[in-house]
């Protein structure tokens, strides 16, 4: 069973397909849950405290805005843990403010730098592309080993 980073990290389709094939999807929900369930200082809505941008310094330089560094404290540890990655390149749903946009760029950059198996895809736009999409993910996850 491999830990597979999914991009967009909130993707329902990728999260489902990865767990369907017996692997562990690394999605933003896991990082958010960790913070929501940890006691500390009240910092709604996501319990991102002033400590997070400091942790984010591991993946982004000090002159990078705190918003990006704070977000990286969620995704950085997961990218480090990742043994494979599936990236959807035309995921318009991952849009947001500049903090989200820059974090998304940094996530993709870090994944591409990392020496792990990666699968780049676009969302399917018709039924035949749907078959190709699912088949590509099935083949990719099958090659990672573990239960199929």
């Amino acid at each position, binding site marked *: 069973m491999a830990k597979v980073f999914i991009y967009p990290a909130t993707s329902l389709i990728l999260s489902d*397909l990865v767990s369907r094939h017996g692997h562990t999807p690394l999605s933003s929900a896991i990082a958010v849950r960790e913070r929501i369930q940890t006691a500390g200082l009240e910092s709604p809505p996501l319990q991102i405290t002033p400590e997070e941008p400091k942790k984010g310094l591991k993946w982004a330089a000090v002159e990078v805005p705190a918003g990006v560094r704070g977000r990286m404290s969620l995704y950085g540890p997961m990218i480090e843990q990742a043994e494979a990655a599936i990236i959807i390149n035309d995921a318009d749903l991952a849009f947001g403010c500049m903090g989200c946009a820059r974090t998304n760029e940094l996530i993709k950059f870090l994944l591409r730098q990392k020496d792990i198996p990666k699968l780049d895809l676009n969302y*399917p736009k018709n039924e035949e592309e749907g078959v190709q999409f699912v088949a590509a993910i099935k083949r990719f996850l099958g090659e990672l080993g573990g239960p199929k």
Partner: protein
Amino acid sequence: MTEYTPTHVGTVTKYVVVESFEVTPTDLALRGYEISKGTMIKETCFGLVVNGKEEEVDRIVTELRKMDPDHIFVKDRGFPPGDSRRCRANLGGARPGYHGMEYEMTVIPYVSHGLEALEKRDAAAVPAPKDPLEKPALDILTLKKLIKAQES
């Protein structure tokens, strides 16, 4: 800053999203209530939100999936059901994160078709999808056409 005391510690929350002609969120909820032991199940317009101990949630999700395996999709959620920081009852408007799911719901029928088709077809024989990173060079004929269009 005030002190924060978390609730539902040690539990997991999962979305069970259904996009099926045969199964409705109500069917899922009824089946979920039948088999659950101490989990919290919330019915929503797109499916269910299930919260509880990890093994119990996984067991329920596995059972629910059997109702229509190719049309039921599951993903993790960070917040427990009805959390005031996320629930639209408190915030007004769509729940943050709903728009992403709404977009993917438009793609899910193609994925479901893919899952169904691969039960009859061999995945190895299906051609690979177009590589999104491939940036094809401008071929000479198109370039000539562009130059001509510019000149005329």
